[in-house]
């Protein structure tokens, strides 16, 4: 992959982010309800105080000025202060980020272990009952409402059996939410992994490896898996990017702090700076990971010049 190609890909990503920024900016101003009134929650206020509050938040300036100044500040890493808590948005995000990262990694690990196991088993013995069983399980993982399975896990393992705490942010409290996310991830990964393995097992070099007298285990581990992991890796990359954006539902069910909860509350309270920052940063991570996947593709497989 040439440097030129990477530059083109990155500038495309920057343009995408600019569009994202514009959409978020527009969406928050189109949304009904005045942030100052929402902050007051019905407390009466004089017109002068109202104007002063709007001026303090920078809402009295023309839209175009707000748009450009927010954008310029954001580029220099300043996303402004939260309307509600008056804290810098970057601090708020930094405080929530570790919890979301822990959850993302936990869900990712469980999803990867479960998904690749199911996918590999199904892919090695395709079109039989083993395959059907594994793929039905995978489909069930994709069909499970995460808020429902999360509540059931809490009910069974925390409330009834008492194996893990119901709430909290320690390691033990991380297990159930990670499983909740992992089940969904595993579903998609298993399906992709299976198809990838079946495709690879039909290749000539696999027949060659068998012809050399290698054992099945060796062929699968050394030759098949190595070539079969590329498409699933892409899916995992995208899913990880989505998880960083905040597993909103899982965080809600388990009442965990995190980026997703921060965003939902900010949207409901029309806390413009927080919404803008979270959406733009998560989109940036998403776009960046996609670019990295593209670049990694080119390195792993030189034939790819997408």
């Amino acid at each position, binding site marked *: 992959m040439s440097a030129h190609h990477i530059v083109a890909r990155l500038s495309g990503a920057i343009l995408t982010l600019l569009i994202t920024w514009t959409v978020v900016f527009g*969406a928050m101003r189109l949304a009904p309800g005045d942030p100052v009134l929402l902050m007051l929650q019905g407390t009466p206020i004089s017109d002068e105080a109202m104007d002063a509050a709007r001026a303090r938040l920078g809402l009295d300036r023309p839209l175009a000025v707000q748009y450009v100044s927010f954008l310029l500040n954001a580029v220099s890493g300043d996303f402004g202060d939260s309307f509600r808590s008056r804290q810098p948005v970057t601090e708020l995000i930094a405080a929530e980020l570790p919890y979301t990262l822990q959850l993302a990694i936990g869900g990712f690990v469980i999803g990867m272990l479960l998904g690749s196991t199911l996918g590999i088993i199904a892919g090695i013995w395709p079109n039989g009952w083993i395959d059907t069983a594994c793929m039905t399980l995978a489909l069930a993982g994709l*069909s499970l409402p995460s808020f429902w399975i999360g509540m059931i896990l809490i009910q069974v393992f925390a409330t009834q059996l008492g194996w893990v705490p119901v709430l909290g942010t320690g390691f033990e409290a991380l297990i159930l939410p990670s499983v909740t996310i992992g089940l969904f991830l595993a579903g998609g990964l298993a399906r992709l992994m299976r198809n990838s393995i079946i495709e690879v097992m039909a290749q000539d070099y696999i027949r060659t490896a068998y012809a050399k007298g290698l054992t099945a285990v060796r062929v699968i581990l050394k030759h098949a898996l190595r070539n079969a992991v590329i498409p699933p890796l892409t899916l995992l990359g995208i899913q990880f990017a989505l998880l960083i954006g905040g597993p909103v539902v899982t965080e809600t069910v388990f009442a965990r702090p995190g980026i997703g909860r921060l965003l939902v509350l900010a949207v409901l309270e029309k806390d413009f700076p927080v919404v803008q920052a979270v959406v733009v940063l998560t989109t940036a991570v998403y776009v960046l990971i996609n670019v990295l996947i593209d670049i990694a593709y080119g390195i792993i497989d030189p034939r790819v010049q997408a």
Partner: protein
Amino acid sequence: MIRPYGPMRPPGFIARLLGAPGALAGTVVLVAILALAVLAPLLAPYDWNATSQCRRLAPMSAEHWFGCDLFGRDILSRVMYGTRFSLAMGLSTVAISLIFGAVLGVAIAYGGGRFDAIGSRLIDAMLSFPPIILAILIVAVLGVGLWNAALAVGISGIPRFARIARAATLALVARDFIEAARAVGAGRMRIVLRHLLPNLAPILIVLTTLDLGSAVLFTATLSFLGLGAQPPVPEWGAMLNAGREYVRYAPWTMIFPGLALFLTVMAVNLVGDRLSLVLDPRQRDSI
């Protein structure tokens, strides 16, 4: 790269679709859910909205199979009526994604040039939003509510459909029969309606079916977050949200609505999976 799947295959289509046990089971469940949705007023043992039918949070019993919720409403009746909301929200959601996505995708692919460049950039930008975040933003603009949530999920699905419709159209436009139609003087509209759309239909049908499951799940998720259906509407996601605080004492308030949601989504996915296999010519020999 996405290839068009070729024209629809009428002979033996249903037989092949139902030829796998999973798809057959899925179809049976779907038919049952559809029947429940239509016949809910006849089948439901109680009024879905009548309170004090039984003791608050009463457990499962012979009179109330699924127990009762906080307001003494019969959960079985509410779950039965919930089929209507899930199906209606899921179907309208994919209808929005399908119609606008397909029109956008075909238009920019067929228009070509700068039109295509701008359209593709727009699709890319929309795809770069994590779907749930895009949907939450749209709900923030439109306001909270059942149909607004469906609209939000529908809009967030448009770029997926548009991208695939565009790629499939580009592949078709390069084929000889389109060239031949143009050569004999067929107009643009005629080529799109008579030649492109029939060939796009299978791939769009597959995409729609595969999307329906996640659409049902997604709209229920928004209701669960409090952004979709509002109480006392007997929507499954909203019921789960309402039952959340009493789960410890009354797990039945969440088990049954969630189970209904899971079964519906699973059934749709089983059928959708099989449909994509049956409609895909590359797989046709193996079934």
